[in-house]
C-alpha cells in the first residue's frame, strides 16, 4: 500500500461512503493509510474490511467498529461502544480508550487490544482470536469461549470463563468469581511464552509472571444426568 493517505470526515461524508471505499476502491488505490475524523459514535465504522491497511479512527466509535475485520490494522483513538471487533477473522483492532459490552464477541482470529477497561461479556463465545485488555473486564467475560486467548491485565468481574471450552484466560488481578466449570490451572512454560508474545504485541508492560491461568475443567463436556441441573 503506497498510495496517498486517504481521509474521511464523518461530519461531512456519510459512513456508507467510508465503508464503500474500504470495501471497493481501496484495493485499486492502495492508500498508505486511511484516517477517519469525527467518528462521533457512529455505528459499523470499518466493518468487513478485507485488506491489509492501516485505519485510524480519530475519536469515539459506536457499535461494531472493526467487526468482521480481515487483515486490517484498525486503531480507535478513543472509546468503542458495544461489539468492537465482533466476529473478527484476522488483523489487529486496537482501542486506545475503554470498550463497552461484548468486545471481541465470537471473533475467530486476529488480535483485539483494549488499552482501557472492557465492560461485561468481553470475548463472549470467542472462537480463536486473541484479546488483550490493559484494564479490567466486567462480568461474564469469555462466556462459552471456544478457542483463543483472553488476557486481562486488571481485575475480572463475576462468572469469569463460565462454560469455557478450549479458550484460555490469563488474568493478573482479582477475580470476583469464576464461572461454572472454569478453574485456575498452573502456568506452564508454553503459557509464559504465549503470554509474553501477546503482551508484546499489545505493547503492555506487565510481566507474564504476574498472571494466573484460567481454563476449562471440562466437566460440562458430557451430559451428566445425575447432576440435577446443579453445576
Amino acid at each position, binding site marked *: 500500500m503506497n498510495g496517498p493517505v486517504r481521509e474521511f470526515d464523518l461530519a461531512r461524508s456519510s459512513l456508507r461512503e467510508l465503508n464503500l471505499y474500504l470495501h471497493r476502491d481501496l484495493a485499486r488505490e492502495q492508500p498508505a493509510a486511511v484516517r477517519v475524523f469525527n467518528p462521533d459514535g457512529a455505528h459499523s465504522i470499518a466493518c468487513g474490511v478485507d485488506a491489509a491497511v492501516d485505519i485510524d479512527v480519530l475519536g469515539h466509535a*459506536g457499535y461494531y467498529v472493526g467487526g468482521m475485520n480481515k487483515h486490517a490494522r484498525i486503531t480507535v483513538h478513543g472509546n468503542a*461502544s458495544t461489539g468492537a471487533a465482533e466476529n473478527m477473522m484476522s488483523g489487529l483492532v486496537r482501542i486506545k480508550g475503554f470498550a463497552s459490552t461484548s468486545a471481541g464477541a465470537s471473533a475467530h482470529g486476529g488480535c483485539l487490544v483494549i488499552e482501557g477497561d472492557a465492560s*461485561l461479556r468481553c470475548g463472549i463465545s470467542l472462537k480463536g482470536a486473541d484479546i488483550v485488555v490493559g484494564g479490567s473486564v466486567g462480568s461474564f467475560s469469555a462466556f462459552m469461549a471456544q478457542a483463543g486467548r483472553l488476557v486481562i491485565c486488571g481485575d475480572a468481574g463475576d462468572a469469569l470463563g463460565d462454560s469455557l471450552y478450549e479458550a484460555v484466560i490469563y488474568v493478573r488481578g482479582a477475580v470476583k468469581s469464576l464461572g461454572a466449570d472454569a478453574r485456575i490451572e498452573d502456568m506452564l512454560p508454553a503459557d509464559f511464552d504465549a503470554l509474553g508474545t501477546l503482551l508484546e504485541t499489545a505493547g503492555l508492560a506487565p510481566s507474564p509472571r504476574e498472571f494466573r491461568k484460567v481454563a476449562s475443567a471440562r466437566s460440562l463436556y458430557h451430559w451428566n444426568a445425575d447432576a440435577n441441573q446443579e453445576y
Partner: protein
Amino acid sequence: MCGIVGLLLKDPAWDAQLGELLVPMLVGMTERGPDSAGLAVFGTPLTEGARLSLFAPGGPPDWQGLMDSLQLRHEGRHELRATGAHAVLVTTADPDALKQYLHAQHAEIAVLSIGRSIDLYKDIGTPAQIAERYGFSALSGSHAVGHTRMATESAVTPAHAHPFTAGRDFCLVHNGSLSNPHLVRRKLEPLGVRFETDNDTEAACRFLEWRMREGDDIDAAIEKGFDELDGFFTFLIGTGTGLALVRDPFACKPAIVAETDDYVAIASEFRSLAHLPGVKHATLFEPQPRTIYSWRRA
C-alpha cells in the same frame, strides 16, 4: 430498543440553553426510538401553587373555554401557556382537585405531570418532529430527562410514551423491558396506587415514587427496585433536585455519562453527546451494572 438522554447543568448561567443543548441529544437517539418521544424539563420551583402539564391527544382543545370554566369553578389564580395541543397551567388551586375536575369534565385533556418545577411533553412522531412541534429548543431549566421510544410491549400512543410521572416533580424514562410489571401493579393497586396505562415502565415509575412517598430516599427506593423489578433496564429518573441513573445487574441496556465542570450529560450512546461543548475533554464513563448514580444541582 429505546433511547434515553439527560442533562443537568451545574452553572445557572447555562439554564437558558438547556433546550438548545438537549434537542440534538434527543434527535441523536432517533434510530433507537423513532415512534414517539418525550421530554421533562425542571426549572426554578414555584414559591406558591403548582404547575400542571396538560395535553390533548386529539388536537388543540378550546384552551380559552377551559380557562373560563376553571376561573368560574376553582378559586385561585390560573395562568395557562399553550403550545398547540400542549399547555402548562400554573395555578394556586389544589392540583389534585383540578386533575379530578379535568378527568370528569374535560376527558379530552390528560394531565401529564404535576409539581412545582416539572414541565412534561410527550407525543408520537420522530424526536425531531416532536421537538419542533412543542418548541423544545427554546425551553430553559436546570435539568431535563428525555426519551425516544421504539415500542416493544404496548401500544404507540402519547400516553404510552415516556417520561412517565407519578406524584410530584418525579419522572422516569426506561430503555429495556420488565418481565413482571403486572405483579408489581397487583402489589401496588391494593395500596391505593392508581395506574393510567398498561405500560411496563409505568409500574417501575409508580413503584419507585410509592417507595419515596413511604419515606425512602431515592437510593433506598432503587435498592428495593432491584429486588422487585425483574427485567432489563436502564432507568433515568428526574426529580425537582436532580437526576438518578441505574442499569440492571446484567447491564443489558447501554448508557454513557459525560461530565465536565459545567454539566453532566447522560445518553444511551455517545453519538447523542458528541455535539456538546467541551465533550472532548469531559470525563466519560459507562455506569456499572446495579449501581446507583445520582447528581444534584448544587
